[in-house]
């Protein structure tokens, strides 16, 4: 099968989906910019014109609200926030409006909107160009949250997000953009709410999100050489969580570590931890461990960044400690 990069897979998805569905359009800051969204929007403007590839004034709340309105009217917009941090300005439209709309009006009107947020961290960009806030959106009833980690998954999940009749927060990470992988040429979808086992194992379940999946896989490989057999799960969807997959794995291994790129307190790892202990506590033979960002904003200096962002090394230390305790 031919290989595409993560960014190319996104680009192809937009080309194919906008070609097939006239009601799909892309709107947001930097959609025609050479740097804002990587190489994900190459040739879209040329092919579909500025009525469907809409670069915008810097007005995150107003523009996201317009995307919500267009979704209410039956379009399937994708509104992009090239740095997830900017989504805060649109929280009213995403949460008070888009997330609530279906429930608030008696399940009569849905909002088939995709809100695409890019985790833009690193490169000494500091605290406002780096945040990974999947936990904030996962907390809100009415939103779905997906985090694809491979070229195959990003195409399949972007398709599903666009075709979903609900507001989906589609989160990727610019560190994924260069990763290569097999991507089928046709349009296909990956169901929202389904994770996947990346590597089977019997000693410990290691759940990871987005870029941390690659760190987890690397950690698992090295731990394998130390005789620890790690099962790596790529969550793919944060909300709704694939509970069955998680329970099945932890019943088998008895140990759970979660690697997530958000902050520690009230993060995705905390939710998974609670879920496991509520439902299959008797299968645990070790406390659950979280590998996350520390509870501080992101720094600028590279030296600080190196210590701030968790890597496969942090995961390996955490896993070794868990296995040792037993």
């Amino acid at each position: 099968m031919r290989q595409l990069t993560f960014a190319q897979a996104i680009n192809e998805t937009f080309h194919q989906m906008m070609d097939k569905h006239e009601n799909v359009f892309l709107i947001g800051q930097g959609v025609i910019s050479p740097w804002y969204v990587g190489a994900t929007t190459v040739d879209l403007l040329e092919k579909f014109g500025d009525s469907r590839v809409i670069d915008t004034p810097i007005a995150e709340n107003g523009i996201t609200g317009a995307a919500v309105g267009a979704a209410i009217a039956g379009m399937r917009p994708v509104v992009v926030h090239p740095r997830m941090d900017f989504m805060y300005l649109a929280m009213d439209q995403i949460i008070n409006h888009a997330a609530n709309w279906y429930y608030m009006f008696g399940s009569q009107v849905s909002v088939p909107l995709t809100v695409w947020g890019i985790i833009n961290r690193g490169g000494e960009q500091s605290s406002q160009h780096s945040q990974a806030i999947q936990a904030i959106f996962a907390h809100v009833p009415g939103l779905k949250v997906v985090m694809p980690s491979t070229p195959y998954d990003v195409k399949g999940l972007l398709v599903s997000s666009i075709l979903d009749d609900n507001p989906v927060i589609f989160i990727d990470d610019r560190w994924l953009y260069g990763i290569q992988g097999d991507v089928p040429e046709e349009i296909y979808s990956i169901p929202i709410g389904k994770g996947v086992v990346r590597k089977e194992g019997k000693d410990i379940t290691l759940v990871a999100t987005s870029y941390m999946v690659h760190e987890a896989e690397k950690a698992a490989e090295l731990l394998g050489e130390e005789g620890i057999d790690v099962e790596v799960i790529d969550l793919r969807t944060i909300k709704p969580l694939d509970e069955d997959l998680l329970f099945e794995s932890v019943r088998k291994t008895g140990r759970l570590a979660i690697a997530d790129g958000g902050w520690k307190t009230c993060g995705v790892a905390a939710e998974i931890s609670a879920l496991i202990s509520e439902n299959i506590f008797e299968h645990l033979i070790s406390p659950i461990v979280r590998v996350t960002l520390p509870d501080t904003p992101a720094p600028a200096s590279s030296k600080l960044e190196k210590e701030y962002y968790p890597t496969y090394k942090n995961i390996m230390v955490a896993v070794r400690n868990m296995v040792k305790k037993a």
Partner: protein
Amino acid sequence: MITEQHMINKPHSDLATIDYIESVPQAKLRFMYEMMLQIRQAEGKIADLVSQRKIICPCHLYEGQEAVAVGVCASLEREDYVFSTHRSHGHYLAKGGDLKAMMAELFGRATGCSKGRGGSMHLAAPDIGFPGSSAIVAGTIPLAVGVALSFAIQRKENVAVSFFGDGATCEGAFYESLNFAALKKLPVIFICENNYYSTHMPISSIQANTDLYKRGAVFNIPSTQIDGNDIIEVYQTAKAAIERARNGKGPALIECLTYRWRGHVGPNYDIDKGLREQLEVDWWMNNCPIKKFEEMLLKEGIITDYEKRHITERIRQQVEDAVVFAERGPFPEFEDKISQVYK
């Protein structure tokens, strides 16, 4: 005190209209009259029901502002969209929303237009272009812009109307919406109902410049300020703006000067709270949009006195029937069900 001296007509050449009742079809005049009466009677009844604690949800009443909702919606098709605010009863009814379903919603019943999950502030009539009202001030202005964007992309001739109050013009979302709508020449009409108060604050306490219609000119949007209690002026001005938008000429901003009789929320008049003066409320109640219109219709022979009494009684009965329908409706069951939250 806010009275007539504050009302200055500022027509924009693109929106200039002929203020003659003769130019409006009679059927339209009668339709608007009945709709205004329906809103007035419904709101009065709801005020009583709130006083009797039969309705619990917060009701922000539209009494006194009827000419704005009715005058604007009278030129809209079913497929045009209207977005409104916490004070949505008038817009909901004027767009064609069902009175019984609205009343049942206020009573928190499963037969309500939002199945008991929205209350007064979140009415919906999606089949007739009223997809939902929001209580976040200025929250629906971008939504209307987005609907207009969808019409532009699909090359439809429909328009979106955004109703909001004077208070909403303090919100950033207002400016973001105007700029984008003007930039892309979107078919959205911005209707600012300036009733001189934002919750408890008089306009002079919160606005550095109280000529709200002037804010459209900043974005090259044709803007005007009109007497929001003159149904003919509202109708004609809105009609011109709507037709202009349908023809691809872009948005318009119409500031309608009006007054809400009741306080910000509930049946009282906010006089007891020291927020408004009795004399001021009295002046505006005498400047009643329905009374003025009625006098004109009778004078022009478009309705007779007999018809007036007959219509009034019919509408009174409609409102009573709506209350009966509401009270008879079952309460919804609480369900922590995924299918209520996600489609």
